[in-house]
C-alpha cells in the first residue's frame, strides 16, 4: 500500500488544456513537495508546502495543500508541450523523517 496515492497515473492532453493531478493519503504530513522529472534526469523540486490550506503559484502551475495536511493538488493552466514529464508528490511525516514519494503521474502534452 502506497503512503501517497497519486491520480491519475497517466494523463495525455492537447496543448492549451487545463489539468489537475491529485496526491492523497490517510496520514498527516509535516510538509509536502512536488517534483518534475524528465527522462534521463533526476527529479527537480517545484514547490514545498507546509501549512494546511496553503496555495502556491509558479507561473501556470498552482499547488494546494489540503486543510488537514493529508492531500495536495497540482493544477496546470493552458498546458504546453514543455510541461511533459513525470510529476511526483513527496511528503515527510515528521520534520526529520524520510521523504516518501507517490508513484507519479506521467503527463504528455501534445502540440
Amino acid at each position, binding site marked *: 500500500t502506497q503512503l501517497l496515492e497519486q491520480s491519475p497515473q497517466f494523463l495525455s492532453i492537447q496543448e492549451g488544456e487545463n489539468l489537475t493531478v491529485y496526491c492523497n493519503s490517510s496520514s498527516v504530513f509535516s510538509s509536502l513537495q512536488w517534483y518534475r522529472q524528465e527522462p534521463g534526469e533526476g527529479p527537480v523540486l517545484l514547490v514545498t508546502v507546509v501549512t494546511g490550506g496553503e496555495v502556491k503559484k509558479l507561473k501556470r502551475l498552482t499547488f494546494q495543500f489540503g486543510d488537514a495536511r493529508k492531500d495536495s493538488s497540482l493544477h496546470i493552466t493552458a498546458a504546453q508541450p514543455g510541461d511533459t514529464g513525470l510529476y511526483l508528490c513527496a511528503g515527510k511525516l515528521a520534520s*526529520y523523517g524520510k521523504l516518501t514519494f507517490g508513484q*507519479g503521474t506521467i503527463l504528455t502534452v501534445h502540440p
Partner: protein
Amino acid sequence: DAGVTQSPTHLIKTRGQQVTLRCSPKSGHDTVSWYQQALGQGPQFIFQYYEEEERQRGNFPDRFSGHQFPNYSSELNVNALLLGDSALYLCASSPGSGANVLTFGAGSRLTVL
C-alpha cells in the same frame, strides 16, 4: 556549481554479481539519501547518510549497504544482484538531515541480466 554527480551513468551486471554506485553531493550539502526508481514509478527510499552514519533506512534487504566518506561523498553497494534490482538509482543531497531541500543527481541506470 556541479550539483549532485553520480557515477557510473549506466551499467550492466549479471545475477549474483555485486555493484558499487558513487555519489558526490552538491557543494555545501552534508547529507546524502539514496533512492531506487523503477521505470515510470516514484523513487523508493533506500537509506540516508549523515555524519558518516546511516541515519534512516527504508524497506530494503541487507544486500543494500552504503557508506559516507569524510568529504560527504557516498557509495551504494548491492550484493547478490537479482533481476528485480534493475532500476534507476538516484542520489539526493541536502544541507542537513532534516532539510526539506533535496537536490537529485541524474542517477545510475542499473540493468541486471
